[in-house]
């Protein structure tokens, strides 16, 4: 049904050897009260690479993220992460399966400081009652502080560590949201419009950050409207429209597909 | 005799219906759990009593009490609801609790904390049907309560203002975009709910011939139970819930004695909250906000 430009698709449908794909979605559907928002969606994101999920407004991209991260339960279909079926895994356990995400509308804890937000992001790696009840916030030299500070320093945000999130500029918060997601050391990172609202310098910083993550083996699934940005890092592109896949391939390949041109008709396509 | 108890339960329920409707208006339309309402219930009864004591004619005393309740309610709107409707959800609730405490203690300061006896305004004339006895005061109160609530239901359904209010209940932002003047309509809701609940207080005093600064706490709070049991935001729910709580109360007195009333009434509320939080006639929880 989908006008497919390539390769990737056939592999995904055939069912792959565990581990070829960071994320694989098979026959995924989601309806809200009879209204189908995602319909029979299948695609795969190769491991260690960046895949883009694009489509016009309301196509269902964020909904796909919500299905993969477990915020919504799918009406039908399966979700596999690194070959493991996580469809029935509760949202809270998915981060243990290696899935982390950022949010389209930044969802940091407003009243907390930047570094406190990052401490929450570390949770997966601080398990057990000992970790839960250690009064480490009285110990400024504790490794959890150091780790969080280091992650901030790495992306040049170190200076903001002690500031309250609510008081920071949009672009900074956006980046911090991303840093928090990476602190769980996910194998698959879902980024919902990471470049939206960033100025050109910030966008360059973001690109550098994402390349760093990819070089460390993190697989990325990126929702983004900024096509040059997508072209920069994503080798693989999946196009959604009205909850269905209309194309898949490299950015140049999907651009050629008539349905894609039609879907974007004069809007985003440069 | 059980039938007599059922009648008494329904009559008491009529008063709960009034309070429950007030709560339901505030929560259904404004998403505001207005805990000042039990205070306004008390104010209705106590002010009427005080003005009667000062020699006022009963009609003027009641009217003045209703007006005073409406005025306080507008103050609640200005100080508790309006500034905080977009803030942390517990703030307006807590602020309205502040009004409850304020009213209760001001009344105590002025008239003391004792229960006062309310003069019998309606001649003690009982109607008999077979073996059943219905007091005139009971019957009049019940008819007024049910009449007023049915009028409200009609008002919300058919008048322009009613339709606008329901639009706000549906979605306040959309209503605003559609050009509905919230600044004019929201005070209406506060006046309506204040008048209903204060009327409940007056009818309670008429029937039971007593008022006290704590009647809001003891009786008014049961209106919250009635609203939840019936279903938040639903007028018919408030009617069903109010009558049901009245029945539960009277029957539990009949079967187990007056002491266990609170256990059963609030036990019933807790059960409903756990098993069916949306209440008997309410919509499922979705738009809820503290």
């Amino acid at each position: 049904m989908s006008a497919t430009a390539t390769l990737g698709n056939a592999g995904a449908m055939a069912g792959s050897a565990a581990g070829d794909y960071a994320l694989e979605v098979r026959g995924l559907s989601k309806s809200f009260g009879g209204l189908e928002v995602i319909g029979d969606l299948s695609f795969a994101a190769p491991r260690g690479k960046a895949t883009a999920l694009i489509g016009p407004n309301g196509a269902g991209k964020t909904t796909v993220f919500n299905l993969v991260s477990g915020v919504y339960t799918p009406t039908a279909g399966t979700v596999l992460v690194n070959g493991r079926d996580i469809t029935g895994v509760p949202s809270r356990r998915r981060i243990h399966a290696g899935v982390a995400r950022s949010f389209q509308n930044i969802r940091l804890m407003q009243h907390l400081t930047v570094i406190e937000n990052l401490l929450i992001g570390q949770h997966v790696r601080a398990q057990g009652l000992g970790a839960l009840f250690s009064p480490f916030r009285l110990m400024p030299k504790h490794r959890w502080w150091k780790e969080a500070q280091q992650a901030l320093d790495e992306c040049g945000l170190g200076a903001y560590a002690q500031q309250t999130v609510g008081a920071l500029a949009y672009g900074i918060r956006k980046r911090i949201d991303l840093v928090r997601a990476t602190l769980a050391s996910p194998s698959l990172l879902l980024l919902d419009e990471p470049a939206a609202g960033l100025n050109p310098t910030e966008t360059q910083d973001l690109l550098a950050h994402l390349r760093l993550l990819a070089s460390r083996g993190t697989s990325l699934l990126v929702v983004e409207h900024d096509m040059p940005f997508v072209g920069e890092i994503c080798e693989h592109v999946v196009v959604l429209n009205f909850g269905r896949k209309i194309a898949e391939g490299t950015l140049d390949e999907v651009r050629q597909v008539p349905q894609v041109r039609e879907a974007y008709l004069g809007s985003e396509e440069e | 005799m059980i039938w007599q108890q059922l009648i008494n339960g329904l009559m008491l329920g009529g008063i709960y219906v009034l309070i429950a409707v007030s709560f339901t208006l505030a929560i259904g339309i404004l998403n505001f759990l207005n805990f000042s309402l039990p205070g306004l219930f008390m104010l209705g009864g106590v002010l009427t009593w005080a003005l009667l004591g000062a020699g006022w004619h009963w009609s003027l005393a009641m009217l003045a009490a209703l007006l005073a309740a409406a005025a306080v309610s507008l103050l609640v709107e200005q100080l508790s609801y309006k500034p905080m409707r977009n803030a942390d959800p517990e703030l307006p609730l807590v602020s309205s609790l502040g009004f409850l405490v304020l009213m209760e203690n001001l009344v105590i300061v002025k008239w003391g904390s004792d229960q006062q006896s309310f003069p019998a305004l309606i001649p003690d004339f009982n109607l008999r049907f077979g073996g059943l006895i219905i007091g005139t005061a009971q019957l009049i109160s019940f008819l007024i309560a049910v009449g007023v609530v049915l009028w409200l239901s009609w008002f919300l359904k058919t008048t322009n203002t009613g339709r606008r209010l329901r639009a706000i209940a549906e979605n306040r932002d959309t209503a605003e975009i559609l050009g509905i003047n919230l600044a004019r309509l929201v005070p209406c809701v506060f006046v309506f709910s204040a008048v209903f609940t204060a009327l409940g207080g007056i009818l309670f005093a008429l029937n039971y011939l007593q008022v006290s600064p704590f009647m809001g706490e003891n009786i008014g709070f049961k209106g919250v139970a009635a609203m939840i049991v019936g279903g938040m935001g639903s007028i018919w729910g408030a009617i069903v819930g109010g009558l049901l709580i009245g029945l539960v109360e009277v029957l539990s007195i009949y079967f187990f004695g007056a002491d266990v009333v609170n256990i059963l009434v609030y036990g019933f509320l807790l059960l409903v909250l756990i098993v069916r939080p949306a209440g008997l006639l309410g919509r499922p929880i979705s738009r809820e906000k503290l």
Partner: protein
Amino acid sequence: MSGYQTGVLVFLAFNVIAAYSVYLPMAAGQLNLGIAGFMAIGAYTSAYLSNELGWSMLASVPAGALASCLLATVVAVPVLRTHGIYLALATFALGQIIAAVFLNLEVVGAAAGYPVSEYVSPMVVVACAAGVVLLMVFLSRTRYGLYLTAIKNDATVTDLMGVNVRGMQISAFAIGAMVAGFGGALYGHHYSFIEAQHFNVLLSVFTVLYVLLGGTQTVLGPLVGAVFFTLLPEALRASDQWRYVIFAALIILMMLLRPQGLLTASLLRSLGGRKQGVQQ
């Protein structure tokens, strides 16, 4: 210290304990309007154990706290399934039920009240309150405290970070109830008399009010609120009724002018300089 001053200090200590029993679940976004009920559980359980079974206070007071904690755990499982307004109302109903049960329970004196045979001295009460404050400060310096704040801010995101949101909420509710039970148990043993009427809705409501007055963003907010609530009317030498009138008016004004409470995180940060965290 004069008897009057001791009296005020003890009153303050009880208010502080109560404040933290409300604060802990509130830090996780849960409004507990039935805290007086949990105080009653602690008070009556410990009094019964001291009176009838001859337990030492060292055992009966903790047992009272534990009883309250256990009851909270049992009811938290169904009650915390509801949230927001429904949770506030469920706890409200629960408080009413508990008070009504004790009002009718003959073994503990029912409406006539229940004398308690053992006596806790003022200094012990104050020390216990200080202990509660220290425990709360300790908790606030752990991940546990951090996660409670996170849940209040955004439960969905906290869940996605892998935190067991429900478990955290149940435990906060239960520990809060334990603190309330502890306070209730001390209360009975200090004043040597308890009556069910004392543990009414208004006690719960007042506690919630002064916790919010102090502010819930930081762990010291409830302490500030309790101090304010206790000392301001004393300073004004007001009668009991005027005390409540003034306090209620103050609450309404505060919520209007400074809804985040007297003590906020940013205020504390600017007061305390930048000591926390890693020095750069």
